[in-house]
Structures are given as structure tokens and as C-alpha cells.
């Protein structure tokens, strides 16, 4: 189509050379979008979330137009994270419906636009760009950190706030002052479990089971390891597996020979269940511990009796007596044939959307910049997963974490054992 008779190599070389020259001359003004992304990712030492100042977005703000307020949500409606994505979207829908039934905000209805990211970071980037091009004032999502990084970067360039749902990666909110979340970070969750294991269970030799395919799991294991060792405990072994693995005999045989009195399984419930069963079958008697990735009643199906008596860290508990939890469960049940959400992401999705809508109603003007300010000044927002304060927290709320014990369905799946407030784990 181009030169029909040129030597290709010379064509290639000269084009590159010219490109370089032009790049030099025009580089300065077109240096474009350079947004600060999070620092290099695997910091094994968990630093307090949002230490220091976060970069401020500088792009012009997005203003509401038309007679509705557009709010976007990026969710994993397909792919590996579908169970969490579905729940988070359903939760957000509930929150939006509630506001719309009350007549919307300033007489305007809320329009919730959903984009699927197929559980991939690339999908999240295109989904976020699509939402931004549709003029959303706020983006809710995502459940996973790698997806949220992309959403946060895109939204930073457009000065639009992001309210992440379940992204617990510690330095996530350092991306920019537009990034918020409704969950705690791994830098909190890991130490909570370490403290609980060391002080309340009296464990000293703990082994780690890490899902090598999940950044969440790798981060949580690392943060647990650091705090458990600093308390004086010993990590006797770390075994790795990949999401989707079904036979854990190999790793468990090795763990057994190291004789741990506790096993910290930082992955998701879909793998934790079979690991627990296979561990008991292999004759391992250690206590099982884990993070919020365990939270689904399905854990009792896949983990059987083996997982009962395990402890994990959770955002909230379906059985809590706070009225807002009951209210939420009633509302959810109405929309879903009387069932409760299968994962915590239902409640967190609801909280993220409700928090965003609350900020929109508090914002001085209906534009994205004012909403960022309103979000940043949130104090004591009553969420299903607990009270959320974002003021002065650089995007990660001060929230308590609950340690719950896994019990059979007849006792209500998870039974509250101990609550940790942020200042208890410093």
C-alpha cells in the first residue's frame, strides 16, 4: 500500500529516525497525560495507607448536564471475578434505587451506567474510559486492585472521583486525591490477623498458603508475614498455588512436614475450601486463618466440616445487630427472592454507591471537583460495613475490622469473635 518498490530496511530505519527527530522537537508540549501511578507495587513492608500527600488532579472538572446525574460503575460481570462483580453491581443498584425512589438528588434522578471489564486490567481501563466519555460524575469500582489502578489512572486525568469497592492494595489510594475506597487496606487486614493469631490463639509457628495468581493474596501474605514476625512469631513455610488449581496435595505434604500450628490462607474462598478439606484429609490439625477473601457462605460447601473453626478478617457481619445491616439485608432479599448476598462485595458495593451519592448530595456544586471535595470531607458516614470517615485519611477510611469464626450454617456461618479498631494495630 505504501512504497511499492522500496527496500524495507531503509524505509524502516529512516522512518524511525525521523520519528525520533520529531519526537525531540515536539516532545516538550506533547508530554501529554503523565499521571502518577502508584509506586512500585510489591512493598513487602506495609506502610500506613496514604502516608504523605497525594497528587491533585488538575484537569477541568466534569459538570452534570441534562436532567439526570450520571454515575458509572465498573464491574467484573464476566470472567474470573464474576461472583464479586455481580454482587458489587447489585449492591450499587440497590443504593441508587433507594435515592431515586426518594426523588433523586436536587430533583435529578441518578443514572447508574455499568461497564463490564471481564475481570481484566485492560478491560477496566477501556470500561473507565467509556464511562468518562459518557460524562459520569463519579466512578464506583472495582473489586480487584489491578482493575482499580487502571480506573483510578483514567479518572485522575479527567478529575473524576473513584470510589473503590473491595480493592485492598495498600498504596492504591496514593495514585491521586480523587481515589477513595470503602474498605480497609491490606496494611490493616494482615496485622489484624497476625495480632489475633499471636495474642488470642497463641499461635507461634504459622505457615502461609499464597495464591500466586492473585496480587491480593501475595500482598496480604506479605503483610501478615511482616507483622507476625515482628510480634515474635515464626513463619515456618510458604507454599504457593494458582487460582483454579484443584489438587493441593503437593503443597500440603510439604506444609505438614514443617509442623505449623496455624495456616494463613490469603486466597479466595473458592480455593480455600478445597485446601482446608485436603489439609484435614492429609492429617494436618493446624488452625486455619484468612482474609476477607473467605467471605462467602459457599465456603461451607467447598470447605465442609474442615473449614469450620477457621478464623478470618471481615468488613462486617450479616448477623450484626446494627439496624442498617438488617435494613440492607431486607432490601437485598426483596430484590433477590429472599436470599442474602453470597459475598461481602454486595454490602461494600452498596456502601460505595451510597457514599458516592451522599457526597454528590453534599457537594457544593454538581461537578466532579466538588464531589471529590465532598468525599474527602466525609465524616461518620453510616455504611452497612461500618462507619466511614475519609476526612484527613488520604482515601482509605478508618474502619474497624472484625475477626469472625467460621461456624456451620445452623449457627449462622460466621460468628463474631473480636473487633479491632485501627489504633489497636499500629
Amino acid at each position, binding site marked *: 500500500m505504501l512504497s511499492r518498490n522500496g527496500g524495507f530496511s531503509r524505509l524502516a530505519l529512516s522512518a524511525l529516525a525521523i520519528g525520533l527527530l520529531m519526537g525531540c522537537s515536539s516532545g516538550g508540549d506533547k508530554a501529554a497525560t503523565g499521571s502518577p*501511578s502508584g509506586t512500585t507495587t510489591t512493598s513487602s513492608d506495609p506502610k500506613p495507607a496514604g502516608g504523605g500527600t497525594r497528587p491533585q488532579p488538575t484537569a477541568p472538572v466534569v459538570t452534570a448536564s441534562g436532567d439526570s446525574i450520571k454515575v458509572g460503575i465498573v464491574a467484573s460481570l464476566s470472567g474470573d471475578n464474576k461472583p464479586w462483580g455481580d454482587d458489587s453491581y447489585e449492591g450499587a443498584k440497590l443504593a441508587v434505587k433507594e435515592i431515586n425512589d426518594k426523588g433523586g438528588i436536587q430533583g435529578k434522578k441518578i443514572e447508574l451506567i455499568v461497564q463490564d471489564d471481564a475481570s481484566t486490567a485492560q478491560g477496566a481501563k477501556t470500561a473507565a474510559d467509556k464511562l468518562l466519555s459518557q460524562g459520569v460524575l463519579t466512578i464506583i469500582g472495582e473489586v480487584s486492585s489491578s482493575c482499580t489502578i487502571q480506573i483510578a489512572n483514567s479518572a485522575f486525568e479527567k478529575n473524576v472521583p473513584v470510589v473503590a469497592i473491595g480493592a485492598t492494595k495498600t498504596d492504591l489510594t496514593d495514585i491521586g486525591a480523587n481515589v477513595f475506597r470503602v474498605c480497609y487496606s491490606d496494611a490493616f487486614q494482615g496485622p489484624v490477623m497476625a495480632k489475633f493469631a499471636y495474642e488470642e490463639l497463641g499461635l507461634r509457628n504459622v505457615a502461609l498458603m499464597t495464591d500466586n495468581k492473585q496480587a491480593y493474596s501475595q500482598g496480604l501474605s506479605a503483610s501478615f508475614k511482616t507483622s507476625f514476625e515482628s510480634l515474635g512469631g515464626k513463619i515456618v513455610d510458604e507454599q504457593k498455588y494458582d487460582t483454579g488449581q484443584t489438587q493441593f496435595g503437593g503443597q500440603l505434604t510439604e506444609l505438614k512436614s514443617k509442623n505449623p500450628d496455624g495456616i494463613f490462607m490469603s486466597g479466595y474462598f473458592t480455593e480455600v475450601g478445597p485446601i482446608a478439606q485436603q489439609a484435614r484429609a492429609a492429617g494436618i490439625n493446624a488452625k486455619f486463618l484468612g482474609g476477607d477473601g473467605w467471605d462467602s457462605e459457599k465456603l461451607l460447601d467447598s470447605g465442609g466440616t474442615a473449614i469450620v473453626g477457621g478464623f478470618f478478617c471481615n468488613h462486617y457481619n450479616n448477623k450484626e445487630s446494627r439496624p442498617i445491616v438488617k435494613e440492607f439485608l431486607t432490601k437485598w432479599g426483596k430484590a433477590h427472592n429472599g436470599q442474602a448476598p453470597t459475598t461481602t462485595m454486595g454490602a461494600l458495593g452498596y456502601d460505595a454507591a451510597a457514599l458516592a451519592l451522599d457526597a454528590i448530595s453534599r457537594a457544593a456544586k454538581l461537578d466532579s471537583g466538588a464531589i471529590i471535595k465532598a468525599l474527602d470531607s466525609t465524616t461518620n458516614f453510616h455504611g452497612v460495613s461500618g462507619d466511614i470517615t475519609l476526612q484527613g485519611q488520604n482515601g482509605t477510611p478508618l474502619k474497624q475490622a472484625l475477626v469472625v469464626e467460621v461456624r456451620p450454617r445452623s449457627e449462622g456461618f460466621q460468628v463474631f469473635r473480636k473487633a479491632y479498631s485501627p489504633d489497636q494495630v499500629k
Partner: protein
Amino acid sequence: MKFLATRVLSILAAIGFSFLVQKLAEGQDSFTQQLLVLASLYVTLSVSLNLINGITGQFSIGHAAFYQVGAYAAAYCGTAFYPNWHGSPVVWLLLMLVVGGIVAAIAGFIVGLPSLRLKGDYLAVVTMGFGEIVRIVVQNQKVLGESGGLSVHPHLQQIWVVVLLAILCIALCRNLQITAHGLPFLAVREDEVASAAMGVNVTKTKVIAFVLGSGFAGAAGAAYALQLGAINPDLFRMDQSFIILTMVVLGGTGSVTGSVLAALLLFYIPEKMRDLSDVRLSVLVSILISVGFAVAAVRYVINNVHKPIKVRAAYYAGITAVTAVVITILGKILQLVPAFQTSVEGGKLRLVVFAGVLIVLMLIRPEGIFAHHEFSWDWLLSPLKKKRTKLPGVSA
């Protein structure tokens, strides 16, 4: 003189075109820009894979590995050296394209070597395995951020760079096809033994194809990393390789034009599906059934009706019309069944439709959209001329 002038003109045209695209895109929203970048990257990837698979006739299905190698090379260099870089970010981007390209080319050389011993499916398996090994090794490296990946500095999107890269890749492959430089590649594809007998250095040719193809994939990877700002191993899974391979085969193995068009098409369909609102299950099922029968009908016409193209075109139009009617009626009927009354979010259908289009296209045109042909103006002009003029040069 004319020779030189044409060449300079084409280079200028390519660069001019890239900047034109950049200028046009600047007025657009970020979604459109993102699509443009990804489309250009996929064009580069599919055309560079076509160089290995189509033009040289090797069977590589692990192209995402080279893409990943390039991306991680750029990301790692950015973390390690960019803080001390005092030049313009754009120059850094171009430098990273070269670095990513070279690192991936070395990887391509390593994979190209076994290709001397292996053919066909076996080579395919080795390249696939290589892809997985790269992903798993990266996933286990602390310095490469394990499965959390790396943040890339600088985070930089330059549309003209990726467009130019795509053009460069297209130009290289096109020129290979029509110049003496490319003859060994085509010869190796057609018959290895015969070409060896004619004095072609088969080994060298294959390795060059691998090195060039993977080099371009690596450069694309570097550009991808910089424009995305953060990368992780999940972006380069095996299905990514499959998608690139599909683009090549769907476009027509060996046809550069086909690769370009198929890349754009396969990329465009799922993205377009984003705008789809909820779809009723009844409609979905009726589409599934009707399209199945329509494909069967089209295949029947292709295989059994030997009439002029105009008559066949009328048949196809008829089938399309009937299918549309059947979908509507069937959808209405199924709507009466309670089980089919639920609806599905359009977003969830993206990859299903992608797979469906793939199967349907392969069933009705297995040789690919363009088969071995290339785009030429003659085709457009042919109705105006009485006789088709044959193109000079070697045709693919």
C-alpha cells in the same frame, strides 16, 4: 530518481498520516483514543504474527509472550532508569520501543532456534509453552512485581507513535511480499526442501522471521506498557495469543491487508457491544438458533450452487432477510415461555458474541476474509475497466 522520490514521499506520507490521526484524536474523548491505540497495537501484533505464520509458514501461537517481554522490558527500564532521565518523555518512549523490540527479538531468537527442528503442531505447542513459561516466571519475580505487576514510568500516551509503529510493521511485511528480500520467506512457506535445494538458507530465514515478528510485538508491548501506566501478567494470558492468532487466520493467512482488517474487526465488535443494553434471553436463544440455520443455508449455497456471483449474492440477501424475520417471530414465541423471560446484561455478551462471530466466519469463509489476496485499487476500479490488469511482482 523516481525511485528515491517515491520512497521519501511514502515515508513522509506515513509520518504525516500518523500526526493527522494524532491531531484528529486529540479532539476525541479518552475512550475513542484508547480504542485507537489498542486497535493500532493489535494491527501491529497481528501483522507481525502474520510475518511468522502467514508469510513464512511457521505455526506460532505464543505471540503474547513477546508482547509481554517488550512490555516488561519497558516497565522495568522505566522503574530503574527513568528517574535519572533528563530528556523528553517522548524520546524515552521511542527509546523504549527500541529496547522492548530488541529484548523481545532476543526472545524470538531463542524460540526461533527450536523451530529449526520442529514443524506444524509441535512448533505451535512449543511457542504456546514458551508463552506460559514467560508469564509464570514473571509472576514469581519480586523485581517484576509478581502478580501485582509494575507501575510504568512515564505514563505516556502518544497516538502517533503507535500508529506509526503499525504502519512500519505493515510496510515491512508488504515490502517483504513484493521484493526480492521476501522471496526466501515465501519459498520456505511453500516448500522447505525445495527452497533449500534452490540455495535458500532455511534456518536463517526462519530465525529472521521470528526475530522480526517478535521484535515488532515487543515494541508494541513497550508502547502498551507506557500508555497503560501499570501492567500485570494477567494482561498477557494465553487467550491474548489466541486472539492475535485468530486475527491472522480470520483475515487470511499471508494477507497483510487481511490481518489489518481482521484486527480492526475483532477488536471493534466486542467494544461496540458495550453499548448494548439488556437483552432478553428469548431473543438471545432465537438468534442462536436462527444464525445456526442461516450458516447452514449459506454453506449449502457455497457448496452446491454454482451460479454467477450476482445470483449468489441475491441468495445471501434472501437468507439474511429470512433470518431476520425468523429471529423476530421466534423471539416473540419464546417470550411466551416463562423460562426465557429473564434478561441478560449486554456487557456479559461481549465475549460470547466474539466467539460466535469467530465460529460463523470460519464456517462460511475458512480461508479467511482476504484469503491470500491483498488489497489493491484494481479491485475497486475493475468494474470501470474491461479487462483486469495483472499486478507485476510476486503475489502472495
